[in-house]
């Protein structure tokens, strides 16, 4: 092996192949997971976003009852897709509060009239301040909050039929 230097390129290439192959098999993590999971929600108060529903404050999330906090917007297409599943969750006893991101009251009203209103309260988050403070980076996202205002679980993306039992289980666990 007097010419061991000639093998260096092959060796480096093999190293690259190994890393690349390993990375390809890893699940690609495209979601930004909230760093706030397990921590209490920071203090906030949002004005109502819909005439029929009150706004949302931190007190609504610390009343001892676990809730689903749904981050959504009338301009968001996946939110339309998840609307029926939120209805299902509500029918099965979950209390859902909404935070409407960068939205106008008339658009919110139109959206809820067309796709149903599963929310007991809706706060208007015009500058995404509350959204960012709980570590959400997109719309829609759904958080499970326990009775003390601590974030127990984060669901990223639209809620589909198969997610309904998962969210109900998380909600039940948060209530214990």
């Amino acid at each position, binding site marked *: 092996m007097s010419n061991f230097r000639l*093998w260096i390129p*092959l060796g480096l290439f093999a190293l690259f192949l190994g890393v690349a192959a390993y990375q390809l098999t890893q699940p690609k993590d495209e979601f930004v997971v909230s760093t706030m999971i397990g921590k209490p929600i920071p203090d906030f108060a949002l004005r109502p976003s819909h005439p029929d529903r009150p706004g949302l404050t931190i007190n609504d999330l610390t009343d001892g009852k676990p809730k689903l906090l749904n981050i959504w917007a009338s301009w968001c297409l996946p939110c339309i897709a998840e609307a029926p599943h939120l209805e299902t969750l509500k029918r099965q006893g979950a209390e859902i509060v909404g935070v409407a991101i960068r939205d106008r009251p008339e658009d919110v009203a139109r959206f809820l009239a067309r796709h149903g209103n599963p929310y007991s309260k809706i706060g208007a988050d015009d500058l995404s301040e509350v959204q960012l403070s709980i570590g959400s980076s997109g719309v829609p996202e759904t958080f499970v909050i326990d009775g003390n205002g601590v974030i127990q679980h984060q669901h990223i993306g639209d809620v589909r039929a198969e997610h309904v039992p998962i969210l109900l289980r998380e909600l039940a666990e948060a209530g214990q």
Partner: protein
Amino acid sequence: MIAELGLAALWIASALAVLQLVGGVLAQKQGGSEMAKLVRPAAITQGLLAAFAFLMLLWLFAITDLSVKLVATNSHSAKPLIFKLSGAWGNHEGSMLLWITVMAMAGGLIALVERRLPEKTMMATLAAQAFVGIGFYAFLLLSSNPFERLPQPAVEGMGLNPLLQDIGLAFHPPTLYFGYVGLSVAFSFAVGALMTRKVGPDFARAMRPWVLGAWVFLTLGITAGSYWAYYELGWGGWWFWDPVENASLMPWLAATALLHSVSVLAARDALRAWTIMLGVVAFSMSMLGTFLVRSGILTSVHAFAVDPERGSFILFLLALYIGGALLLFALRAGTVTEGERFSVTSREGALVFNNVMLSAILGIVLLGTLYPLLTEAFDVRVSVGPPYFNPVGAIFTVPMLIVMTIGPMLRWRGDSFDRIKFPAAIVASIMLAVLALVLVLGSYGILPVLGLAIAIGLGVASFLPLRGRKLTRVPIATWGMIMAHFGIAVALFGMASETAFSEEKLAAVSVGDATDVGPWTVVLGSVEPVAGPNWTAIEGRLQASYDGSEPILLNPQSRNFWAPPQETTESTLATRWNGQLYAVIGNQASDGRWQLRLWWKPFVTLIWYGGILVALGGVLAIIGRVRGDLKRRYVRARSDQRREDAAAL
């Protein structure tokens, strides 16, 4: 019927590729010359069949045959014809077919015209070309058949996305593909030469036009890509060191190094193993680039349709070809006899320096691009950006550019520095003068200042090889070199000037307010809502006047697309001879004022004009080299003829 014809042509072409591989390998053995007779016709026919298949796909797109899945998903009957046609390669399957077609046609062309190489090396080269081709045929036919029919013809196509109807977007990817495929030919030549251990000037001359051609296309591709990012992303920058950009830069760096080492090999029969290595590396970088872009393994600002499964396939091909070639290199390179020697102060010496520096820059870009991939394996997320690439790259770029000013003046084999003392001193004093001048003018940061000085010095120096020569007798290829080097100086001047002298204004303005930036005064006339087919936007009506002259109207937009929801900025540009005004409109603040972002970028357009000059220089070099080769062939044929005539007497 058209689709079936295309598919049949593809299958036959792939079978011919197998024949070409087997024939080429058997031709290496004793008594394999009978098999060898098949190889050239197989390569030529394969090229014609692949071209035929691609024509069939174009035809399907031209008549919008909606029973073909690819047409139905990527086209629409209401599209203009040019975008119908470009739709044929604006998707994964079609672009792979284009790749195969260009590659097969390149193989056919080599088989048709290449007569310099020893027959065995030629056969090994065509076998290597077929071997690479087979992988892509398999990929295309087994997993991404472009001619697949739908069980039920679609009523209408789904591809009427106005965003994709962009002439730049239609021609940018094929440009890069031509570059990548050209490098695959260089790769095949390198493998062929390694197999037969015949590395010499003939090999270099056979390979050179392909390397030059690939390099011209890569240069154009990078230049166009940079301009696209500049005006489309709305951030005012022209290079972001993004993985996708680096993926196109790395093959270019390798090809540039290869181009110069091939010249040494052709002229002086030196740098044998090194040229082979670069041939392998250049194509590796193309494959690596394709892999990084298509697999989505790295996060990029340029959105692409990514597919990890296809990524695995490309990685497999990468392992097979590059791993195989590097193994061959490790086994054989030691047995390739050493080439000619030369002294340090010589044309070769300068070119070796250029090669080492280019390779170092390539290594730096490669490391920076792959580093996140490496650390993620250990669960550490990092992002490598300009703070790494700029200074670390400059460590090698600056010396390279300085040697570039004197290198072309040196003689082959050995020279004394005394001979070029005078022009070198002129260039050095120009650089120092510019350096001093800029330092007096203000503080602009070390890299842009160095860039300006080197750019002007290099611009002058690039013409110095003409010194003392009769202009009409300078070979075309030399003009090509001069133009390419001058183009580098021009582009560098643009980059340095943009970095040093750009003025940026971020202002919140009400309607009627005036803002000054550089020599421009910009007044916000009004802000109007406008709507397009699938977006709404607010459009600023700006009156921009250059140095007090008649104002021109600029309409930057901030667009909201609703399917999928996405906000984009449409910047507007006003170009003057000495720079560009770049305007972007942002959101409205709560007090009703509008965010306006204005840049005055002196001489920024030189970056892309420089790139075009470099590419034109490459074209001149190809013309010069091919003409030279034809002349040499003619002279050789005539002397053979004369010898025969003399023997007959």
